[in-house]
Structures are given as structure tokens and as C-alpha cells.
């Protein structure tokens, strides 16, 4: 399917453990399961599945579901596919009315997902985790993010990483090397400006979240895994030096015009279109874009490269990773076992994991990429992550580990910096204020333990 975009090669060692999310959230201790639910699925039924992927992102998953569906004589899967914007607000009233789906894919982390868990609407998946052997695949550090009170409530369908995506042919034509230091990055960007690229780094400021992910990456780059952990789970603050310095560097990028003259005028869609057309030579985004890009970029897909963001403080470069969508089973579903069986088929069988990987998403856990035809840009993304993994891993998406208002403040602040109306200090201060409010209200993520089998 992706032969024209792919090359058969090995990334790193024969079997690369891709999904080590070294957030050092906590060690593993207590846990325990309820009654085992991992028996053979039985009985007639319909699994209502809701998910909120970007278009193209779930093609491989959807095909696999159809395949599983065909093999089940007594169970049918009915999919309701909503965009990422509609899925969360639709779930709330549906689940609270006792209607909702049997199985849904949604955000993992504090905020709404925790509300579902606290309300007893999400089924404890620990028995399946133990009986199906998911615990052998999912790294503890990742399991803790979707664990509450020692129980596992969601299975992440993928591990996602971010990086600076760039157009190889433009770099080659201008004789530019992939930068590995911040100064090299600014030199490359200057060279692009000198050669007529008005927007060397596409920001997609109108939608705010893409460029905010760049700021998040700069923060993580400055403070490292320990700094992030200290802030999320300790007594660290968002106004400490590393955050301040990196926010200032972000403002400098804007000051030098690297995001173009009107970064707030462009949506993510428009920015990616410009990137695929070679108008914008670089943009910071994540692996989630790859499945859709295979179609959207057309023949330019193979021209897309990716490099890790250089350190903003001349320190080490870190790998980054965050879980993708989490798959939850409705606590009141009468096809819970069948739903768990579907999860097991989708994300824990070799055949499915290979297909998902070929589709451009990286399944959680160890993945043998030697015999897999990967999309070329995914190979590069994985290769870059492997290169820096020994330095530690930081979260790819801070928004997945913080309550909603934190990312809202980040997005507002980033847009303010892009508009010239917010200073870096104001940005970090507003995030810190929101953080204190959320922390006081008990809405922040607790350092948790992975479930024990």
C-alpha cells in the first residue's frame, strides 16, 4: 500500500523498543484486579465504537476492525467517527445519560478522562491487562498515565513523537545541513529567509495548538525530563529559569520573522498545505500527521524529512514521546469482554501491530521494524528518537499531562507572543497562575503506580 513511500530498512537495532516513555512518573507498587474478564468473547451483540481521529489517521485501524468484525459470528462493530474536536464534547452528555458507546478512543490524562473514571463510567481494564498479557507490552511508565487508584482504564493506541519536519529538496538545493544545535537552526533559518522563503517555519498560529507544541518542545528541551517531572509532580514552577529562557528564545524566533509576517493568519491545514507545496520549508509537528500526509502530500511525501529539535540551552537533545488516543470500555457495556478482545486484536497481535505501523502510527511497546515497510518520514522520526533516547525522554505533548486550562493559557500566551502583545514573562506567569488554580482544585495528574498483576 505504501510501497512508493517506503523503504525496507532497519531502524537502530533489530528490535527497537520505541515506546519507552521515560517520564519517571513513579515506580510500580500496589494494584490489583477485579474478576478476570479476559475469557473468550461470547454472546450476540453490537460494539458501538466512537473515535475522534484526524481524517486518514485511523485508516489502518478501521481496516483491522472490519477484519476482526468479519471473524466474529456473534458480534458487530458499529463505528461513529468524529473529528478530534467533536468527540470529547459528545462523549460527556452521552455517557452521563447512560447511552454512550461501548468502546471509545479519547484523550488520556487529567480533565475529562479523569471525570469519566471518577464517575465509574470507564471499565477497569486491569483484568484484561493481566490476563491478555498487555502488561508485558506496555511500559510501566506509560501505563501509569492511564492508571487511577491502581487500576488501568485506557489502552493507548500509539506512541507519538514530534520533530521539525522539513523539505529535503529545499535543504539540498540550498546546500543546508540538518541542524543539531540551536545556532545551526537559526543559521539554516536565516539562509532560508535569504533565499526568499518568507515563512521558513510554519507556525499555524491561528489554530494555536501546533505552534504551542513547539513551545512545549522548547520548554522540555530546556528543563529536560527531570525539570518536567519536578514541575508536574513536585514543587517546580512554570516560571523557573529554563521555562523563561526557552520562552524568550521562542519570542526571538518570532522577533526575527521566522514564522512569517502573519503567523496568526494561517491555520494548521493551510500551513501543512504550504509545507507540502514547498512554500514553507519547515514546520514543527508530530507523527500523527504521517498517515494523512501520505495522501495529502502526494508525490512530495518522500521529500519530507524530520529532525529532532536542537537544544535551546546548548544541552543534550532528548527523545520525546506521548501516548496517542486512549481506548476505554464503557463500565456499563454488555459487550465489555468483546470490546476488550477487539482492543487485544488491534494493538497486541503481531499482524495488527505491523499493519498499524505500516499505516504510519507506532503501536505501544516493542516493535520489530526490520521486516516492516515503514513510511519514509516515520523511519526518520523513529531514527531521530533512537539517536537521543539515551539522554532521556520528555513528553511530546505537555497537554496530555496537564489540565485543559494550562494548554489554553499556553495557546493564548503563544498567540499573544506572535501578535506582540504578550511578553515571555507574562506567558509563563499566566501558565503558572492557571497551574496553581488547577492544582488547588485537585485537577492535576497524580504520580501514580502502574497496575500490578
Amino acid at each position, binding site marked *: 500500500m505504501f510501497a512508493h513511500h517506503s523503504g525496507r530498512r532497519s531502524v537502530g537495532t533489530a528490535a527497537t523498543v520505541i515506546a519507552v516513555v521515560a517520564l519517571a512518573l513513579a515506580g510500580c507498587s500496589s494494584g490489583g484486579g477485579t474478576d478476570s474478564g479476559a475469557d473468550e468473547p461470547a454472546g450476540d451483540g453490537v460494539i458501538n465504537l466512537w473515535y475522534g481521529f484526524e481524517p486518514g489517521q485511523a485508516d489502518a485501524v478501521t481496516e483491522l476492525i472490519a477484519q476482526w468484525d468479519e471473524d466474529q459470528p456473534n458480534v458487530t462493530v458499529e463505528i461513529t467517527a468524529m473529528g478530534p474536536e467533536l468527540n470529547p464534547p459528545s462523549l*460527556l452528555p452521552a*455517557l*452521563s445519560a447512560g447511552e454512550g458507546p461501548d468502546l471509545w478512543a479519547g484523550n488520556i490524562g487529567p480533565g475529562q478522562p479523569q471525570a469519566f473514571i471518577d464517575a465509574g463510567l470507564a471499565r477497569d481494564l486491569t483484568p484484561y491487562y493481566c490476563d491478555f498479557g498487555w502488561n508485558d507490552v506496555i511500559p510501566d511508565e506509560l501505563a501509569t498515565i492511564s492508571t487511577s487508584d491502581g487500576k488501568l482504564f485506557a489502552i493507548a493506541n500509539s506512541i507519538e513523537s514530534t520533530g521539525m519536519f522539513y523539505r529535503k529538496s529545499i535543504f539540498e538545493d540550498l546546500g543546508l545541513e540538518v541542524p543539531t544545535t540551536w545556532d545551526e537552526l537559526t543559521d539554516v533559518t536565516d539562509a532560508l529567509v535569504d533565499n526568499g522563503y518568507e515563512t521558513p517555519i510554519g507556525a499555524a498560529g491561528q489554530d494555536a495548538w501546533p505552534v504551542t507544541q513547539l513551545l512545549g518542545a522548547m520548554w522540555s528541551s530546556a528543563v529536560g525530563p527531570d525539570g518536567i517531572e519536578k514541575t508536574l509532580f513536585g514543587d517546580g514552577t512554570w516560571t523557573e529559569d529554563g521555562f523563561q529562557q526557552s520562552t524568550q528564545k521562542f519570542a526571538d524566533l518570532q522577533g526575527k520573522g521566522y514564522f512569517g509576517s502573519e503567523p496568526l493568519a494561517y491555520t494548521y491545514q493551510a500551513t501543512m498545505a504550504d509545507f507540502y507545496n514547498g512554500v514553507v520549508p519547515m514546520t514543527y509537528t508530530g507523527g500523527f500527521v504521517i498517515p494523512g500526509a501520505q495522501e495529502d502530500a502526494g508525490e512530495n511525501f518522500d521529500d519530507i524529512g524530520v529532525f529532532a529539535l536542537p537544544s535551546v540551552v546548548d544541552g543534550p537533545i532528548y527523545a520525546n514521546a506521548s501516548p496517542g488516543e486512549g481506548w476505554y470500555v464503557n463500565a456499563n457495556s454488555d459487550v465489555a469482554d468483546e470490546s476488550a478482545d477487539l482492543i487485544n486484536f488491534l494493538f497486541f497481535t503481531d499482524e495488527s501491530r505491523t499493519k498499524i505501523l505500516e499505516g504510519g502510527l507506532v503501536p505501544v511497546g516493542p516493535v520489530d521494524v526490520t521486516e516492516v515497510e515503514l513510511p519514509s518520514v516515520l523511519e526518520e522520526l523513529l531514527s531521530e528518537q533512537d539517536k537521543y533516547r539515551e539522554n532521556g525522554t520528555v513528553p511530546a505533548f505537555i497537554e496530555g499531562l496537564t489540565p485543559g486550562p494550562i494548554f489554553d493559557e499556553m495557546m493564548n500566551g503563544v498567540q499573544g507572543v506572535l*501578535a506582540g502583545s504578550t511578553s515571555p514573562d507574562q506567558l509563563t506567569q499566566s501558565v503558572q497562575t492557571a497551574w496553581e488554580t488547577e492544582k488547588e482544585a485537585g485537577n492535576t495528574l497524580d504520580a501514580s503506580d502502574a497496575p500490578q498483576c
Partner: protein
Amino acid sequence: MAATSTRAQALTQHQQARRRRLRRGGRRTLIAYAFLAPALILYVMFVVRPMFELFGMSFFTWNGVSPTRDFVGLDNFSRLFADSLFWKSFRNNLVFVVLLVAFNVIVGLITASALARAPRGRLLFQLIFFLPVVQASIVTALVWKWIYQPDGLLNRLLEVVGLGFVTRGWLGDPDTALPALALAAAWSGFGLSVVIFLAGIQGIDQTLYDAAKVDGANVRQMFFNVTVPQLRPVVTVVFLLEMIGAFQTFDIIWATTRGGPISSTEVLATYMFKRGFTEAQFGYGAAVAVTLMIVVLTAALVSLFVRERNED
């Protein structure tokens, strides 16, 4: 004796007739209530009850799914009034209302007045103006998003007419995003104003215009001295409809800017949605909704009161 008997008989007949009338009237009233009942029941179920529930919810903290809610009294409201983003949303909402209502009432009235005088093509123009009203609001939002893009229709037109220096990403500029969206929203409701005004103008007694003409009035004078005063009740209706609609605007903003950039297009409805549905703070979202309802109700009552006083 006979006279007394006749009188008593007449009285009885009168009483019987009165009773019959009352009975008939009572039956009519019952029939009227029977016809009203289904609508009333639906209204109570789907409007009144949710309204009271919303009021109730605003005194609690609730994440939208939890079986328990914590009573917090007026905490949500005190938090709301100290929330700078709420006040920014409120200010944006007021600006949005003023722009939209002004456009649809003033331009709508002028357009309707011009159409009323048009000898032909009136129906065609009515149809053209009314088309956006029946169009799905999400389509309207996407069309205008495209128009306002940096390489969109508006900027291209401006360049063609030599105004290239004012081109920009209209929805990406915090100074222009709100007026740009108000214009888009006005466009989608403009046709309805025109149709209502046109119907009102056609109901004005033609002799008033004839008399004005005899007195030597020109078109402008007839507009201000005949059309506008005669249309006052219609203007009030359009004003109220547009104002309430503008206060409740959500879809066009959500589908284009989601309240950005830098909250410059955040209005109470989008703010309420964010707090309630995306951040699972239903009590706080309900407090925003209650405040919005009170604001709209007050504005509507004030405008009705002003109208009544002017009529008196």
C-alpha cells in the same frame, strides 16, 4: 302576582341563558387549553425545566458525569466575576451584538426600503438575500473562513482595487477578527431582516406616502418621516431577534476561530462551551449560561420597555 311571576320567569330565563353562555364559554376555554396543552407540556419539559435545572446546576460543582455534585452556593458566580476571561468574553459579546444588530437593522431597513420601491426584480433580490438564512451555519462559517484567508477572496479583491496595503489575515489579526466574524454572522441573518422589513413596509398605508409626496417630501424625508415611524413595532421585533441571536452566537465562531486569536473572538457562548464541555466544569459553565440568560432577558425587557414608553 302575575307580574311577579313573569318577572321571575324572565329572571330565570336570563339566568339560564347566562349559565348557558358561561357553560359554552367554559367549554371554549377548556377546548383552548386542550389545544394549548401539548405545546405547553413540551415547553415546560424542554424549556422551563432545563432552565430551572441550569439555575440549580450553577450552584454546584459538577464534572458532567459524576453521580454526585457538590453544593458551593454562589462560589461559581463570585469566581466568574473575578475571571478576566469572562469579562473579555462579555465585552466581545457586546461588541459583536452592537455590530451585528446595527448592520442588520440599519442596512436591512435601507435595503428593504429600496427593494420596496424597486419596480421589478424584488423577488429575485429577496431570494438572493434570503439564501444565506437557509444555509447551514457551518457552511457559512467555512465560506467566510475562505474569504478571510490571507490568499482569500477579500484580499484578492482589495488588491485588484488598489487597496493591497490593507490586506491581512482577517481572522488571524486580534484587531479585525471580531468585526470580521460579526460581518459574516450579519450576512447570514441579513436576509431575514430584509424580508421582515419589506413585509412591514408593504403594510404601510400608501396614502401616507401620497400625502407626503403632495407635501413635497423627497425619498429621504419619506424614509425618515413615514417609513421609519410606521415600522417602529417591526424594528423592535427585528432588533430583539437580532440581539438575542447575536448574544447566543456560537457556531460561526467555533467553526472559524474557536475564540482566538488571544481570546479576541471569545464570546459568552464559546466560553461556556469550553468551560463546560471541554473542561468538564459544568457548574461553572452553567453560571456563565445563567449570566448570559439574565443579560439577554434584561436587554430584551429594556428594549420592550423603551418601545412601550415611546408608544405611550
